[in-house]
């Protein structure tokens, strides 16, 4: 027993030894829950590139969870040097708590979003219901799968994209747009709580004719569950989904890891970094890489939350706050 205790204490010391050093050679990247493979590939490429540049060996640690939870954990003391999220609002939470500087969107190109995606469609093989665009989703013979917008960030993009499409189609008539979105809601047989659960419903329980989720996800699902079983359909218009990145200044300053953190996030914008992101189903802006992958990314017109809804704060207030438009539409089901 004594020996066990000693071993335990030794292990405890080993783990709790402060990572704080003069020049930290490790970096913790707190990321969203489904980005494991993407950042595993990024890290594998970054480490030798950084060594070539600086001669320094570094390790990159990854933490993956829902980004709201990650932001909360960082505020409670999770020492992440950088965040790579899929929700701008969760970085805003870090800004409010003084962990990320207010001008974070100016620190890196494209408003600190190295790659992007959009809500897109995944249909069953051969597209038997002929689903091509948002207006097919209101047809009575179509069953639509996406998670509950009350609980899922992913579904909020879907909701806003459908709403934005309807606003354009009905010349900005809010009432008609809301009717349109409500009709889509009526076609959803089950609202799962998160994106992955919705995928399970569509893929494993074989419910629904079309799954709506990020384009990068639809590509991953095709790869994972058989590309001959599903077809990807890109709607004519969709909503830009940014994948914002930021240095967590408060942690980086404390650990002295600012330079490494910047180098890491800069790497996402290099040709190599962009290629990895594209290989994992994300759209990128890099002039060399984007054309290489053009075939896999059909033309789509993207609108932004800023342009259509006046920013996330306003969208939150008008659509997602309790009693707001989403609640009214969802409640009428």
């Amino acid at each position, binding site marked *: *027993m004594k020996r*066990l*205790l000693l*071993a*335990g*204490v030794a*292990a*405890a010391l080993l*783990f*709790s030894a*402060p990572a*704080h050093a003069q020049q930290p050679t490790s970096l*913790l990247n707190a990321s969203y*829950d*489904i980005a*494991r*493979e993407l950042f595993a590939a990024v890290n594998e490429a970054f480490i030798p590139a950084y060594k070539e540049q600086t001669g320094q060996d570094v390790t990159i*640690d*990854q*933490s*993956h*969870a829902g980004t709201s939870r990650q932001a909360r*954990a960082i*505020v*409670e*003391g*999770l*020492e992440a040097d950088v965040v790579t999220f899929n929700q701008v609002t969760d970085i805003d939470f870090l800004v409010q708590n003084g962990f990320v500087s207010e001008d974070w969107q100016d620190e890196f190109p494209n408003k600190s979003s190295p790659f992007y995606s959009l809500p897109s469609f995944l249909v069953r093989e051969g597209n038997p219901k002929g689903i091509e665009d948002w207006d097919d989703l209101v047809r009575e013979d179509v069953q639509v799968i996406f998670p509950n917008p009350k609980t899922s960030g992913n579904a909020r993009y879907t909701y806003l994209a459908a709403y934005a499409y309807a606003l354009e189609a009905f010349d900005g008539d809010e009432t008609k747009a809301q009717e349109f979105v409500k009709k889509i809601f009526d076609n959803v047989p089950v609202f799962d709580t998160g994106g*992955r659960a919705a995928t399970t419903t569509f893929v494993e329980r074989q419910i629904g004719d079309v799954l709506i989720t990020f384009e990068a996800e639809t590509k*991953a699902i095709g790869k*994972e569950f058989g590309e001959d079983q599903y077809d990807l359909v890109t709607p004519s218009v969709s909503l830009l989904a940014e994948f914002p990145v930021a240095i967590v200044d408060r942690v980086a300053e404390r650990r002295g890891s600012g330079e490494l953190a910047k180098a890491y996030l800069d790497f996402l914008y290099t040709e190599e970094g962009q290629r990895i992101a594209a290989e994992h189903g994300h759209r990128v802006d890099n002039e060399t890489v984007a054309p290489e992958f053009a075939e896999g990314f059909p033309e789509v017109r993207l609108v932004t939350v800023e342009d259509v809804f006046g920013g996330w704060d306003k969208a939150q207030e008008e659509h997602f706050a309790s009693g707001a438009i989403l609640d009214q539409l969802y409640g009428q089901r």
Partner: protein
Amino acid sequence: MRHAKGKPPRVGDRPAIRRTLIAVVLVTGAFFVLAPLVVIAVQAFSLGVGYFGATIAHPDTRHAIFLTAATALIAVPINTIFGIAAAWAVTKYEFWGRRFLIVIIEIPFSISPVVAGVAYLFVYGLQGLFGPMLQSAEVRVLFALPGIVLASMFVTAPFVARELIPLMQAQGRDLEEAATSLGASGWRTFFSVTLPNIKWALLYGVVLCNARVMGEFGAVSVVSGNIRGQTNTLPLHIELLYHDYNAVGAFAAASILALLAVVTIVAKVLLERQGAGRRSRPALAAPIVEAKP
């Protein structure tokens, strides 16, 4: 017929009821307990032994197993000592607040582990009571091993004590008093008199405590920070593999935990044969209780 002899019929004596009851329990047991376990085993090997081996050999999985074992190696001995001390204090001494202490020991049983995790956030988190102090002292509690151990310990604190308290209560203080009156020291009394009497119950508690520490998800999930290869315990790793569309990997990792459960059950059965556990307690306690006037 027993009924004819005038004895009132006992509940469950009628064959129909008996059979129905047994059938219901068997079917439910098979359906809710056995079937999922079989699924785990089948799924874990559905892509072949090679894939199973590869999942287990992956550095992240290996680290998760190591971390879970390390957590148990720290948490279980501490909780064992705590359990013995608590049971001793509650059963061998009379003091004000004794009942209150029993209630406190049992609290973790009735609280959802997630609540425990969140409570630790409020105590050790940067926004919490000691967080800023700990950070300036460079001590990491949350999102590191100490936090995981603390959360696991909270959840499993009652296991050993709860096994010991009823037994030690039934045994009373007579033997210890006799030993003391014959001149034995406190330690001697404990090791020569008390410990032999409680050893099987103690081991039983330790086994249960260990199983629970290794399987704990809720509380650990809140304080872990989910850093792969650093703070991901086996249960967390299973969830993570599952969410990565790696269902087979998740089942492979789950089978390790399930294996632990089987070992626990075997240990439990063996210990019960030795007289530990609730089943045999009245028999053990009986002579001592009856010896009292």
